């Protein structure tokens, strides 16, 4: 029973991190129909930037803000410089370009920072809470609560942005139909860039939240990224709510797998889940478009 509670709470925390990555993928995908395979690599890079700030004597929170700001900037730059030129070309081209970007960023991080694991500060304690003698595990620590709160806060802010602001309306219009939005006077290109910038910011947040557990090295976000991708696909790749629910489902399931079956196999279990979802419910659980070819 104690284990079960521990795994469930841990799963919720992990799941919200996958959800954050999934959310960033959904944001990029909705605007451009490009899946950013470099999202995890970008988050790894912004985490290094935060670590530099902290190591140079800045506070954790300064590093946090700098990481998020650089994520925002990196997302915009990536969209303008390497993704925009592939617009109108076959999907194969933009896929290869974002994979190239992933390995480029990982290589640059390896050159600048070396490839050894670095420990990374957490915002709050990672010691789990106890109710009497009943330990709730790391999933109940202040750090985990901060993770959950910040991901949910970002998701709510994003929902508010899309629903209640003129910019959000323009972004939705551009994603729905670029041509029509353009005819109505929306600067579609800018909306796309903004979408990628926000995706970069959310990815950077995910990096800050997960890196204290994984350590920081050039490949540190690889497995988080593929699980975030799975979360987004479970949710339909088109739906922000779907990404969050998908992330939570995946996180809890994987914590049961790693807890009860084998601690080294989360990605393999995630792959099995991904394949099953794509086979039996290819539209995902929460997609708004009626059909899609997967």
């Amino acid at each position, binding site marked *: 029973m104690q284990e079960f509670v521990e795994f469930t709470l841990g799963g919720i925390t992990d799941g919200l991190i996958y959800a954050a990555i999934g959310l960033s993928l959904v944001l990029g995908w909705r605007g451009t*129909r490009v*899946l950013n*395979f470099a999202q995890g690599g970008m988050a790894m890079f912004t985490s290094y930037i935060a670590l530099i700030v902290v190591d140079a004597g800045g506070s954790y929170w300064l590093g946090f803000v700098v990481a998020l700001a650089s994520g925002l900037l990196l997302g915009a730059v990536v969209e303008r410089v*390497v993704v925009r*030129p*592939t617009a*109108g070309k*076959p*999907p*194969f*081209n933009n*896929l*290869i*370009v974002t*994979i*190239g*970007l*992933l*390995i*480029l*960023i*990982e*290589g*640059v*991080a*390896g*050159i*600048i*920072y*070396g*490839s050894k694991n670095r420990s990374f500060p957490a915002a709050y304690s990672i010691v789990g809470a106890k109710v009497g003698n009943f330990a709730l595990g790391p999933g109940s620590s202040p750090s985990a609560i901060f993770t959950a709160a910040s991901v949910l806060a970002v998701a709510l802010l994003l929902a508010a942005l899309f629903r209640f602001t003129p910019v959000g309306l323009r972004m939705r219009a551009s994603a*729905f*139909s*670029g*041509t*029509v939005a353009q005819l109505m006077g929306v600067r579609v290109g800018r909306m796309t860039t903004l979408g990628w910038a926000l995706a970069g910011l959310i990815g950077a947040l995910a990096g800050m939240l997960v890196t204290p557990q994984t350590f920081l090295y*050039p*490949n540190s976000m*690889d*497995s988080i990224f*593929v699980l975030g*991708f*799975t979360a987004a*696909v479970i949710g339909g790749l088109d739906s922000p709510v779907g990404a969050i629910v998908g992330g939570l489902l995946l996180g809890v399931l994987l914590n049961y797998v790693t807890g009860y079956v*084998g601690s*080294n*196999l989360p*990605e*393999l279990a*995630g*792959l099995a889940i*991904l*394949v099953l979802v*794509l*086979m039996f419910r*290819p539209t995902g659980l929460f997609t708004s*478009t009626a059909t*899609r*070819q*997967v």
Partner: protein
Amino acid sequence: MTLARHVGIAIIATVVLLALSSKLDSFRQYQLAQVAATVIAVAGLTVLIGISGQISIGHGAFMFIGGYATALIVMHLKWPLAAAILASGLVAGVAGAIMGVAAARLRGPYLAGATLMLAVALPAVAFQWQGVFGGDQGLDFTVSTPGFLGASFQLTEWDAWVCCLSAVIVLVLLANALRSRVGRNWRAVRDNDTAAALAGLNVAKLRVRAFIVSAACAGISGSLLAVTMLNVTPGAFTLALSIQLLTAVVLGGVGSLAGAIWGGIILVLVPPFLTNFANSHGFSAGSASVPIVGYGLVLIVVMLVFPAGIQGGIRRLLGLAGPTAAGQVNALGRRWQLARNPAGRGAAAENPGGRAEAGYQIAASEAAANDGVTEEGTP
């Protein structure tokens, strides 16, 4: 006729390579073996991507399977080397069949993500069952040169022979497959799967078969690399390896077996050069990452600037009937036509010949048109 030509070229290539390997020092023999082994994986991947129209960014996983299969077979069953290599290819092919069944239903980014996940996930198997796979240390094994070559025969030269011969055999088989019914069927499925299904082809079966062939090539390649290094570790089969293979395919020219040879050569010979260059210019700490940056730049620049790759460039330089060069331009033209006027898609379908890359782009642009939110509204 085609078969005779391929076999003829293969015999000449084998003789030249064997003669060459005896002239090289042992480090160059080792590199020759590595080039040959890599070419096999790259050729398999280019068949999958360029001919059958599926993507895999996790082919390192099948090399992992082939490498570990060889190590386990040699250590525990003590089979002869040729049997071990073949069996490793078969094991990887079975794994490819499993992945292929899932892949047959997936397109573009979904398939890319699933295969990426395979590459990230599989090395963990070595840690989960340390007793069998040796964990982080991996497995060490030994192979010896056959007795009839004499005791003084170098192991590196023997490795070079084995790898070159394997590469030649695999390339001949692939080249023939591409010229045969199955190759034509793959192209048909790639260019327009609906039309292929209407013409009576079993699309899913063809896709799975391409995955099996491609995974088996990767397995043989992984097996040969394990034999040249005499060990396998999970660290040798990283995501970077999978992306290297993709880089070689893209750089050589997607869908061209000759391009796969160029890609394989560059992939093995250039990175050590880059690393040495970085070391000698004071970058020693991160020098191992310099080639990684190179792969990233190559993937981005090739895709943005010259998507036909090296083989496309060679064809254009030589002014060869240039199915590639001409096809490239035509495909571009058609794509623009398609983009502006979806009704023009019929024109593309009328001209289904063309080259691998050209065909790929047609297929891809049709896929793009299909993936769009609305058929007519695709900008």
